[in-house]
């Protein structure tokens, strides 16, 4: 959006330069391909998830989510082969609406998703771009269905999500490729849903269920000669993603509040994508549950919800979906 240029800061020259291209990659045709990360997880195995709540004292609820680098099959290069996801979400409110706002019988939700300027390989500006606004709308849709808004008349809640590190859309050696960019946004959205969902529960706002995010994708599979369904895809690890889907999933109601499916999916593929994404969300849910049970136990309760005893330091759970 050219019309929305940032006028308040002195910005780097537009256009800029692309990140370094190493001469070896140009001279030896096979070299670049050697560096390409390979998925060594099982197709249905998720990356590790770290989640902690109540990290921002001034907010009424907050959560921090981290999905570290996928284990890589390759030695370190200057540019990390895969990207990680780090998201901080905070909930402000419920608080009274501003004076100018019209009366609202329900809780007004406003969601802001912002990438830190250093979150991705290409620097982001300070003004939210179209992708970030779009993510904000998706996140709002995912959360609106969960919150029981009628219990908070005349008030608003602000959910601010900062993406400290975002999943890249594609491997750095392939950027701008065939149907490259944008797949990382789905992972970011799923992370945002999990983080913001946790922050809302941390804030004590009435919810019908816990909402967690998950992603599934169909990738071109060179070995099996066809499409393969993978959960929690790290876009760098896959050459061609055909279609991918992120959902906001309610575990105990078995419902979805948000579906974002893109790419060339057939009819059955769409169903199995949503199914797969819900499975991945189930994984995030189990981490969320552990974290909240732990928090409740810390507050002086002896027994666990389902016999989940024992104190853990943090929920750092590895799981296979």
């Amino acid at each position, binding site marked *: 959006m050219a019309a929305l240029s940032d006028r308040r800061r002195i910005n780097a020259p537009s256009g800029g330069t692309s990140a370094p291209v190493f001469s070896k990659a140009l001279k030896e045709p096979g070299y670049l391909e050697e560096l390409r990360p390979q998925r060594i997880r099982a197709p249905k195995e998720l990356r590790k998830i770290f989640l902690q709540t109540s990290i921002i004292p001034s907010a009424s609820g907050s959560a921090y989510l981290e999905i570290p680098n996928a284990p890589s099959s390759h030695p370190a290069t200057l540019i990390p082969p895969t990207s990680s996801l780090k998201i901080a979400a905070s909930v402000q409110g419920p608080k009274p609406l501003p004076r100018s706002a019209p009366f*609202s019988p*329900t809780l*007004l939700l406003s969601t802001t998703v912002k990438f830190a300027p250093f979150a991705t390989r290409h620097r982001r500006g300070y003004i939210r771009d*179209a992708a970030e606004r*779009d993510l904000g709308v998706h996140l709002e849709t995912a959360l*609106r269905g969960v919150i029981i808004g009628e219990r908070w008349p005349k008030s608003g809640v602000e959910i601010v999500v900062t993406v400290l590190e975002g999943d890249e859309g594609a491997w750095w050696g*392939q950027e701008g490729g065939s149907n490259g960019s944008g797949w990382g946004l789905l992972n970011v959205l799923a992370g945002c849903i999990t983080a913001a969902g946790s922050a809302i529960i941390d804030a004590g706002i009435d919810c019908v269920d816990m909402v967690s995010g998950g992603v599934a994708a169909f990738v071109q599979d060179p070995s099996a000669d066809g499409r393969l369904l993978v959960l929690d895809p790290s876009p760098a690890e896959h050459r061609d993603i055909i279609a991918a889907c992120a959902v906001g999933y309610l575990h105990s109601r078995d419902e*979805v509040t948000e579906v974002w499916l893109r790419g060339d*999916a057939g*009819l059955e593929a769409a169903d199995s994508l949503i199914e797969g994404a819900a499975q991945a969300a189930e994984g995030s849910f189990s981490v969320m549950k552990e974290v909240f049970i732990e928090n409740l136990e810390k507050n002086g309760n002896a027994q666990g919800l389902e016999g989940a005893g024992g104190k853990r330091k943090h929920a750092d759970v590895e799981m296979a979906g």
Partner: protein
Amino acid sequence: MAPSQPAHVNLSPAELSFLRSSLSQTPPIRLDNTKGPRDFRSMIAEYDVLPSTNGSARIALEDGTEALVGVKAEVEKSQWRPNVEGRHTLSVAVGVDVDMADDDGQEGEENKGKGQNGWIEISVEIPGFREDDALPVFLASMLTESLLASGELKDRLYINQRFHWKLGIDVLLLSPPLSYPLALLSMTTHLALLTAHLPALKSEKDEDPLFDDDWDAAVPLYPKHDAQGGTNVDKPPIIVLAIAVGSNIIFDPCKEELAVADAVLAVGCAPSNASSTGARIVSIRTIDPPAHLTPPAVPNSMNSATGGVAPASTADALTQRELLSATGVWTPPRGGMKRSLISQVTSMVVGKGGVAEEVIAALQAIEVG
């Protein structure tokens, strides 16, 4: 909150409750009772309305919403990317063959995979909204996403190594957004793209591009026949809006129907490559149903003006209100959508003889007729 704003209607809880109960009957009784759940509202459509564009269309719905779309193509210099060449040879070396390549002719093969997402730019303008408001941004990204889902359109924009077409698609909503305008905008865009033409290229290979100035020789952006003369060709996608009320699924809702929906789903679909099935899905998005923002009704039992007793505290009010579910007193819907319902919607849209097929055929007929 913006996407639900235009659809926000001021209906009283009693009206909402009435609408919802009539829509959840089998078969549902719609606001326009002559229509079935799958019927679209009637519309007026025309194309080639803007002489200075490569393709344009205008569609007006019966409720007064009207959209205008212009497609402009400009030649642009491509940015040199160091690893394009490398990648190309590599993919050959590994032997990854994309199965769709067979459908394309020799020319298609050459352009395969060279298109870039940045070559297509969609902007949506809606009166009363800034261009960075959530609604236009959401609509534009949904339209873009569906257009880019099949790589074929952007590959056709490739001219040679140094030049490409840059496609600007400008979507204008001429009326205030009465109902959720996504379906209207996508149909108008579909028609404009379907009728868009690019000047015929006269130069060869990597020369500076030269074009035929004869407009009659221009090639359509979406060719009507593929190289073999078949008719199974790529067509622009359309987006169908569906709402769920109870277990009923209703397509092309008007704004009042939208206001009582439990869930709203936008399904983007393009005609299938293989003629056997109806269409294929290129994108799905849920849209926040505006019903989440409606005020809950006050039942007579809780209203002192109607002989009831106002609850003594909010805790009591909460208890009484929770016990009201299934009494027909309006409460905003909660939760999401069952997965089975989503798959029901998608199969109704893209299945054989589905809604998508009908809409695409209808728009095709406009161009032919």
